[in-house]
């Protein structure tokens, strides 16, 4: 239960304005220390903009493949400071019609890109499974930003992203940001991820298709080069799969240091604000993190894996 093993946050950077003066966090606004999730481990010091409820409008829906559709949304400007790695919890807005409670939980949306357009509403794109169906004109309310931006080593040059039996969407906004900051980035698509349409990915991104067992040519080299690794996995057993990946890296590298490999948790988040305790992730030493406050990216070496 101790808040031990706090990472050396000074050595990490988070994208863009996250360290700006005006990015007061909820916690800071209450004049209380940053490490305040009940019993939770704080991975990074910054959350970015405070969480708000805002509205969004579906402008276009495009089909990426048989399983994935992309929503193009206009969003409120206050949300366009959302950082790579942060998410929103979305719910259809029914206006004057009776509220619907099916589906009940808010949908967890992972922005693929967010753009501010002077004189126009800001835009956000998200990838969603083809079910449920979305239609242009539908309004949503978004709770966000949820969670913390991905944090990178200051000296970063090579990042490895791995999507294993899941859509790569949780990694894409970060990938885009890294590439635009001249960080070499490689994306490994494995299992259910291999069908993701490459045409939708940035040209500069190196894409590797792995087999179901995370085997790909030159694997040792790819892993050796990477300064940091971010992994998203299938939801049948997130912790079990994180463990597999961590063990693979331990086998492929001399050492797996702290702040080197991160699991990007896609656990269901009923509240997204640290209230419901449904997104707890056990840490070594008996403490726990909350995916919604401390994630979504969690240092795999700090987790208590099964």
């Amino acid at each position, binding site marked *: 239960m101790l808040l031990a093993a706090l990472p050396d946050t000074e050595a990490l950077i988070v994208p863009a304005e996250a360290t700006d003066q005006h990015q007061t966090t909820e916690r800071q606004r209450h004049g209380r220390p940053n490490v305040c999730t009940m019993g939770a481990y704080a991975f990074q010091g910054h959350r970015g903009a405070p969480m708000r409820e805002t509205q969004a409008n579906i402008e276009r829906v495009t089909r990426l493949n048989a399983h994935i559709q992309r929503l193009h949304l206009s969003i409120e400007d206050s949300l366009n400071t959302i950082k790579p790695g942060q998410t929103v919890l979305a719910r259809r807005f029914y206006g004057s019609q009776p509220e619907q409670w099916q589906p*009940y*939980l808010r949908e967890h949306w992972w922005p693929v890109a967010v753009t501010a357009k002077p004189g126009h509403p800001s835009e956000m794109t998200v990838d969603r499974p083809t079910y449920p169906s979305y239609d242009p004109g539908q309004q949503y309310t978004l709770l966000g930003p949820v969670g913390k931006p991905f944090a990178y080593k200051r000296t970063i040059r090579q990042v490895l992203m791995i999507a294993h039996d899941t859509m790569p969407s949780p990694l894409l906004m970060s990938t885009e940001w890294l590439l635009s900051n001249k960080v070499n980035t490689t994306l490994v698509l494995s299992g259910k991820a291999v069908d993701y349409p490459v045409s939708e990915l940035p040209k500069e991104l190196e894409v590797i298709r792995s087999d179901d067992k995370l085997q790909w040519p030159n694997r040792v080299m790819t892993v050796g080069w990477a300064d940091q690794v971010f992994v998203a996995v299938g939801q049948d057993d997130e912790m079990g799969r994180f463990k597999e990946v961590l063990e693979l890296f331990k086998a492929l590298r001399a050492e797996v240091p702290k702040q080197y490999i991160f699991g990007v948790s896609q656990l269901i988040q009923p509240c997204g604000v*640290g209230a419901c305790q449904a997104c707890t992730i056990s840490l070594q030493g008996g403490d726990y993190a909350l995916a919604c406050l401390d994630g979504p990216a969690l240092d795999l070496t700090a987790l208590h894996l099964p």
Partner: protein
Amino acid sequence: MSIQITRAGKNPLQVDSPVMPAAGTMGFGDAYSGLVKFEKLGAFVTNPVTYTPWNPASGARVVPLDSGMLIHTGLPNPGISKVMSKYRDLWDNFAMPVIVHVVGTSPEHVRKCASRIDAEHAVDALELGLNDDIPWAEAEQMVRGAVGNTDKPVLVRVPFTDALALAETADHAGAGAVVVCAPPRGSARDPHSGRMVTGRIYGPMVKAMVLRLVEQLAGKLEAPIIGSGGIHSEQDARDYIDAGARAVQVDTLTWIQPFMLERIARDLGGLVLTRPAGALADEWFPGMGETAKKARDAAKNKDAGQNPASKKSG
């Protein structure tokens, strides 16, 4: 100007609005600070705490259901002492009373928690959560233990199973108020892993079932009833009041539509207080907010003649 939601006694609990969150839905007070106007709530009920720390449940914890959900967290918390020391200052700044929810683990631990809360200036009341399949005798022992170890009101939240009998048990044992009730429990399959998960069930349909329990209990208890289960609209909350509840607790609606909690609190604050004067149900009670709170605290300090340096009267 205020509603008394626990039975008469040394420190009856007064609230401005008969609306509060249900235990486990709003954390310990910092989680919704940017999204919900806390000062509009009648009271703040904390997440469940235990005497010793509890670890989170392992495995899948959320199963989406049709118009609802099943959740199984294991009620992780670092134990009452850590919670107190961490949140005391925050609670002290709240305008409304703070009710700490204590999980009914064992009579001994409950007694210890009650003593701890009795000594804690930042806390106004204790809510005791009874386990789902608790025998009547043990429930009685636990309630008496809690009531005997604090001068503050002890609300008792009965489980859905056997709610009627346990509500009467809690009432006889001296509960300051009976919260009807904890969410029903059930089992559902995690769609990702295919594994069966047992946990609490939430959704608008729960309201229909719990409302009937409140109807059945109305008029049978000495302690006021607080209705809790599946409230998803102002009308849902009013239905509980109409059925005989003195106040209500809003549960998972806050996760889905945070602003609704404030809306219901504003609505019922107006409704209950203006109705006796024959006003329309949507008329607003003008004294709501800081003014009434200050008046209440002043009255409390004068009447009770204790806690002279009341935290909130400044």
